[in-house]
């Protein structure tokens, strides 16, 4: 069951007496490592104990205890339970923790995020710049004592809404009459704008030097994005070009940073559900799934049997339409403007019709509740799903393959263009189809089964070359496997209640922490939640698949042509809502 990740199989405290102690706070698991021994312990965790995949790194601000904590979640690519370890430091600036970037390069962006939002300095990190906010922004927003300009109260519901809720705009309460807050005595005229020198310096540092004997050419730096027709949303990448070859690359993000974590910590547990819809907005069902499983883990409740099946059906349908769009969008990026994506969107519309019928909206479903789902699937919708799964979608997937797979131009663009090898993929904590295309059969539905995935008969889609063609074809394999799961689920779905809990707008969540993760269509989607027993989470963190997968983009794209870069980026299947949150 889902709780498998919580059980400890490794006793770090016994291996490192005096350096590591078990975390004994009620509801907490894992180990607390001394700051000074972190590197040593982490190396052992990777080499001795074999936790090769560092998935989540995040900070927690325990302001009452005057502590800042960094939480690490490490897993094995062979599957099974994870290992949680933490470092605690005094909450006095400068807060310093050794960086683990040399042990798991995949922590790169996540450490930068913790620096940006918590002000935790990771010593030894070569490129510790802000990542989501811009350089020069005042403060570290996720700290508990940092207040946003439209701050009203610590937690919702706000008292001004009822019983004397005369409508006021939030702007009216702010002295600047806008979502603004400046430090005292700030003078906008005497202020110099950050020219992003840090970015260009770091780009220059990591740029490959001219290869001996090659023609002397001048390098140029090009900024693609944040508004660029082929970057899948508001991502910006600064690239150094030698002719047409990319020799240096830095992604710049945060252009859609919507403060998901901060708002989440103000929300009640229930109120977060619709916000998770807006993370990976192609797959609101999967996001809901990940979040509610995490909270259910904390609450230790069972999910109604029928609801489990409904959840799986919705999540897999979501995966099918996500991969279809992926294929359509990839074709757009390769230059076959529109026809394949029009075909893909047609099937997507039919899937969205189902989402609309069960949940009410096409994209932002808000369908899952703790203990089940919000309403039952009506019979006619169930029939519609069956029609799609048994008849239409398999035929249309075949048609899509017939349409594209052998196209000579497509093959020329995809075959043999290297994306990642297995070693690098694991190193950079890449998950999802991109990892599986390199030959690592790591799928959470098998590796660490959650919900009822252990009941279904399906194969983990794997391909072995790690080139673009494999990355592309694996999407089709996954659609087929999802359809297989769907067929079984639709045959087995039992009658019964759809929620094991009573509908209530406030839930009791016992104190403690939980890390829940699911295999979203883009990779591992994790939620780290700390509860202190109050109606609102104390810490709410999303470990987005797109964000961490993007860590690999720099090493992936160096040396490739700029025209391929667009397709390489498409391979990662990033979505900005989840990447920037």
């Amino acid at each position: 069951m889902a709780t498998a990740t919580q059980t400890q199989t490794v006793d770090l405290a016994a291996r490192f007496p005096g350096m590591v102690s078990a975390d004994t706070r009620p509801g907490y698991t894992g180990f607390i490592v001394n700051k000074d021994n972190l590197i040593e312990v982490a190396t052992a965790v990777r080499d001795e104990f074999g936790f090769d995949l560092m998935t989540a790194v995040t900070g927690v601000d325990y302001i009452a205890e005057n502590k800042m904590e960094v939480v690490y979640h490490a897993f094995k690519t062979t599957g099974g339970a994870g290992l949680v370890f933490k470092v605690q430091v005094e909450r006095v600036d400068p807060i310093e923790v050794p960086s683990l970037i040399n042990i798991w390069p995949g922590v790169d962006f996540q450490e930068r995020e913790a620096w940006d939002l918590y002000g935790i300095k990771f010593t030894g990190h070569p490129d510790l710049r802000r990542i989501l906010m811009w350089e020069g922004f005042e403060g570290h927003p996720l700290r508990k004592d940092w207040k946003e300009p439209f701050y009203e109260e610590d937690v919702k519901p706000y008292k001004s809404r009822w019983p004397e809720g005369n409508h006021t705009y939030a702007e009216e309460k702010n002295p600047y009459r806008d979502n603004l807050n400046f430090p005292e005595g700030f003078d906008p005229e005497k202020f110099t704008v950050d020219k992003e020198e840090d970015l260009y310096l770091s780009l220059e540092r990591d740029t490959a030097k001219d290869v001996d004997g090659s023609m002397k050419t001048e390098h140029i730096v090009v900024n693609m994005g944040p508004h660029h027709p082929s970057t899948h949303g508001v991502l910006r990448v600064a690239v150094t070009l030698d002719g047409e070859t990319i020799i240096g690359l830095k992604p710049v993000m945060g252009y859609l940073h919507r403060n998901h974590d901060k708002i989440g910590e103000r929300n009640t547990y229930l109120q977060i559900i619709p916000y998770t819809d807006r993370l990976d907005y192609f797959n609101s069902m999967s996001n809901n799934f990940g979040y509610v499983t995490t909270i259910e883990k904390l609450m230790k409740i069972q999910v109604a049997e029928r609801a489990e099946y409904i959840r799986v059906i919705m999540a897999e349908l979501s995966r099918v339409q996500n991969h279809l769009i992926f294929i359509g969008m990839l074709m757009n990026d390769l230059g076959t403007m529109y026809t394949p994506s029009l075909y893909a969107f047609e099937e997507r519309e039919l899937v969205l019709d189902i989402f609309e019928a069960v949940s009410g909206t096409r994209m932002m479903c808000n369908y899952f509740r703790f203990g089940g789902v919000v309403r039952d699937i009506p019979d006619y919708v169930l029939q519609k799903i069956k029609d799609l799964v048994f008849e239409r979608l398999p035929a249309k997937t075949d048609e899509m393959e017939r349409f594209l797979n052998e196209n000579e131009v497509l093959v020329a663009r995809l075959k043999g263009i290297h994306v990642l090898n297995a070693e690098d993929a694991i190193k950079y904590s890449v998950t999802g189809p991109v990892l599986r295309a390199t030959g690592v059969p790591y799928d959470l539905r098998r590796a660490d089964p959650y919900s009822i995935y252990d009941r279904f008969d399906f194969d983990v889609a794997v391909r072995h070359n790690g080139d673009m063609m494999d990355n592309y074809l694996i999407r089709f394999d996954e659609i087929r496997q999802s359809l297989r799961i769907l067929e079984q689920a639709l045959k087995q779905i039992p009658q019964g209640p759809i929620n094991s809990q009573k509908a209530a707008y406030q839930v009791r969540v016992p104190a403690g922490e939980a890390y829940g993760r699911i295999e979203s269509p883009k990779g591992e989607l994790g939620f780290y939640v700390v509860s202190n027993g109050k109606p609102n989470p104390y810490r709410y963190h999303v470990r987005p698949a797109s964000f961490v997968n993007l860590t690999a983009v720099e090493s992936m794209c160096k040396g490739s042509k700029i025209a391929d870069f667009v397709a390489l980026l498409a391979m990662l299947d990033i979505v900005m809502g989840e990447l920037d949150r």
Partner: protein
Amino acid sequence: MDNEKLSLPNYNIPQDIENVVAITTLDRLYNWGRRSSVWPLMFGLACCAIEMIAAQTARYDMARFGMEVMRPTPRQADMMLVSGTVTKKMLPSIIRLYNQMPEPKYVVAMGACASSGGPFKEGYNVVAGIDKFLPVDVYIPGCPPTPQALIAGMIKLQEKIDKESISKVRWYNKEKFDGNYVPMPLLGPDLIDVRRNTEIRDIAAKKTTQESA
């Protein structure tokens, strides 16, 4: 040409030439031309952009309104469809794009976020509505507006275009028209709207005195 829409309703055309002759005013002709070819800027910000793409695809097919020609360059666009959350970090780019668009140009705020910040309004990196910086012509509530709602909004925009008159529109009025230029905001400790510099300085200064008092 759509006779019904073009001809003035109260002008009697002899029956025998009804099918050959259409009577119209210059305004109507001008507006008919513009309303039927509003080219949007190819530009998506967040979740709403996905519904915008969906509106372009087969089921909704905005091409029926002459709005399928998504222009990647602002120089060729007539309408900016602000489809999603506008963040402070993104805002300078949006303003730059807007300034680069030639007149006549329209701004449509699609979805709650673009209209007022939406569900993320309280966020520290979110602009509380694009109308703080750009003149918005149509607001489309919804989160996200369904493709049909978006098309309904587009029809609303067409209605607005229909009411304009070639003799009065701002972009032909040489004396009064200042190009509709919006100064670029800067990213400092927070987003700086340079039009409000003195105001910001005054309030920031006052805050110090208040807190020390």
